[in-house]
C-alpha cells in the first residue's frame, strides 16, 4: 500500500486514503406478493443486470425483505433501491423493468417506497397494458392502477418518488489468497446487507473487475485497473507487495454519505474479523484523486 496505514482493524492495516463517492438519483419501490418467494423472484429480475451505471444505466439491488406488517397491502414483500446518474435515466429504466419483471411475475403488486415531490412513473406508464380495462383507484390520497392479468389484477401505485443520493462508496480487500479474500468479502457484504438505505449492486455485493476510466481502445469508457491486478505483478507498477494474491472490491450506493460511511465501517470490520491478518494484507479504497465525486469518505474517519 502506498500510503501509510492510519489504523488497523483486527490487526489488518487500513490505508490512510479515501473512497470517492458521487451524487446520484435514487428511488425505492416495494414489491409484494402472495408469498415472499414470488416477491423475491420479481425483485431479483427487476434488479437484474443493474450492477453498474457504466453499461447498465442503473444500479439496483434488494435493500431488505419486508414482513406482512411492513407493506401497504399486508403481504410479504421486498424493498428495492435503484440508483442512476440522472432522474431521466431512472424514468427510463424503472417503468421498463417494472413492466417486464414485476407485472409479469405471478401475484405481485408494486408500490412506491419513498415520499417526495419529484416522481418516477410506475403504474402511470404500465396502465396501458390494460388496453382500456385498467382501473384507477385513489385510496388514502394515493393513486393506484389495477391492470387485469391472468391471475387477477396487477396492482401498481401510480408513481414513486426520486431523491438525491450517493453512489460509488467502496473499499478494497487485499487478500493473501483467493480463498481468504472471498471469505472476508462475503462477511463484509453480509454485514452491509443488514443496513437500511444502502445496497451493494454487484453480484454477491462485490466485484473483482475494478476499473479505471478510459482504455487504450477507443470507445471503451472503462477498462481493467491493471494497478490492482496481482496477475500483472512485475509488469506494471502496483501499490502492494508480492504477498497480495487477490483483491476484491465492495461497491456501495446509499441514500446519504453517512449511510455509505456506516456501511463501509461495518463491512471493513466484518471482513477483517472474518480472516484477520492471516487472510488480509490490508484494506484500501478507490478514488480518482478527488476529481470524480464530491463525497470523500476517509477510511481513518470511519473508526
Amino acid at each position: 500500500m502506498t500510503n501509510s496505514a492510519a489504523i488497523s482493524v483486527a490487526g489488518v492495516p487500513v490505508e490512510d486514503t479515501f473512497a470517492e463517492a458521487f451524487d446520484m438519483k435514487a428511488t425505492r419501490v416495494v414489491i409484494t406478493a402472495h408469498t415472499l418467494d414470488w416477491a423475491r423472484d420479481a425483485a431479483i429480475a427487476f434488479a437484474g443486470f443493474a450492477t453498474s451505471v457504466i453499461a447498465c444505466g442503473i444500479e439496483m439491488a434488494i435493500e431488505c425483505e419486508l414482513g406482512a406488517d411492513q407493506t401497504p397491502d399486508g403481504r410479504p414483500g421486498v424493498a428495492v433501491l435503484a440508483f442512476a446518474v440522472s432522474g431521466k435515466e431512472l424514468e427510463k429504466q424503472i417503468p421498463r423493468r417494472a413492466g417486464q419483471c414485476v407485472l409479469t411475475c405471478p401475484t405481485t403488486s408494486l408500490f412506491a417506497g419513498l415520499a417526495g415531490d419529484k416522481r418516477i412513473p410506475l403504474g402511470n406508464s404500465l396502465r396501458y397494458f390494460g388496453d382500456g380495462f385498467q382501473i384507477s383507484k385513489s385510496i388514502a390520497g394515493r393513486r393506484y392502477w389495477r391492470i387485469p392479468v391472468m391471475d387477477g389484477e396487477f396492482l401498481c401505485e401510480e408513481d414513486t418518488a426520486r431523491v438525491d443520493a450517493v453512489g460509488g462508496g467502496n473499499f478494497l480487500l487485499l487478500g493473501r489468497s483467493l480463498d481468504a479474500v472471498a471469505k472476508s468479502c462475503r462477511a463484509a457484504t453480509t454485514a452491509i446487507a443488514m443496513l437500511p438505505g444502502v445496497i451493494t449492486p454487484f453480484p454477491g455485493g462485490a466485484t473483482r473487475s475494478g476499473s479505471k476510466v478510459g482504455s487504450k481502445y477507443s470507445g471503451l469508457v472503462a477498462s481493467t485497473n491493471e494497478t490492482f491486478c496481482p496477475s500483472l505483478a512485475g509488469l506494471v507498477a502496483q501499490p502492494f507487495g508480492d504477498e497480495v494474491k487477490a483483491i476484491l472490491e465492495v461497491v456501495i450506493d446509499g441514500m446519504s454519505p453517512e449511510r455509505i460511511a456506516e456501511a463501509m465501517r461495518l463491512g471493513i470490520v466484518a471482513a477483517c474479523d472474518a480472516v484477520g491478518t492471516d487472510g488480509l494484507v490490508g484494506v484500501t479504497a478507490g478514488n480518482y484523486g478527488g476529481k470524480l465525486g464530491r463525497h470523500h469518505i476517509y477510511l481513518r474517519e470511519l473508526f
Partner: protein
Amino acid sequence: MTGWELHLIKPPSLALDASSLSCLEEIANEKEANQLALTASTPSQTVLAGELFRIVKRNDDRIVIIGDVPFLHRIGFGWRRRSMLIEGDVGAGLGTHMRGGHIELRGNASRDVGCQMRGGILQVSSDVGDYLGGPLSGRRSGMSGGRVIVQGNAGHHVGHRMRRGTIVVAGSCGDAVASDMVAGTIVVGHEAGKYVAAGMKRGTLILGCPAILDPVMFGSPRLQDLAVMRLLATDLKYDAPEISNALAHPVSRSLGDRSAGGQGEVWMMMRA
C-alpha cells in the same frame, strides 16, 4: 386565525341560504361576522347572521354552530381548509362544492350533502337525504374528490354521477345508488334499494349486504380476491369496520352496467 361559535337565538320563519357563513373561514372581526347576510329564496329578503345567532370568538380556529338549523341550506358551501362542527340538524346542500378542510355534523342533514364536492372530509353522525355526493340540479358531474362518511342512512341516488372520491354510508341507502357513476368508491354497510348502479360507467360500489343486480346490466357475480381489497380494507378500518373485516375474504364481484357500456364494479360481501 379566529374561531367562531354560533349559538342559535331564534329560528327564522323562512328557509335561508347559509353559504355566506363559509366566509367565517376568513373573517377575524366580530362586526363583520355579525353582518354576514343569509338570503331567502327571494334575494330581497335577507337575515343577518347576528340576528340568527349569538356569535362569539373561540380560542381555537374552529367554526362551531350550535342548535338545530334545518332551515339553513348550503352550510359549508365551498369550504376550503378549516374545521367546522355543527351540533344539530341542518337543511340541504351541506358541504356543497366543498374543496378541503373538515366538516362534522352531529345530527341529520337533508338532501344534496356533498354535492359537487371536490376535496376535504365531511362526516355526518346520523342520516342524510337524497343525492348524497351527486350533482346539483342541471349539472353533469357529481362529487369529484374528498371523502364523505355518513354513520346513519342515506336517501336515494347516493353518488349519482360521482366522478372521484369516497362515500361511506354505514347504514342503508335508498334506490339508485351509484346511478350513472363515472368513478370513485361508494361503500354501503347495509341494504341498498332498487336500481343498484343503473347506468354505472366506472367506479366501485361496495355493498355490505347482497343486492339484486339486473342481469341485463351486470355480468354474473364471481368470487374474487383482488390485491386492491387489502388497501381498501385498511382505508375503511375506522369508517366501516365491518366492511373492512369482510374484505379479508373473497367478495362477489359483478361488472357493468353493460347496457351503458360501463366497466364499473359492484362488490358484495359474503357474510357467514
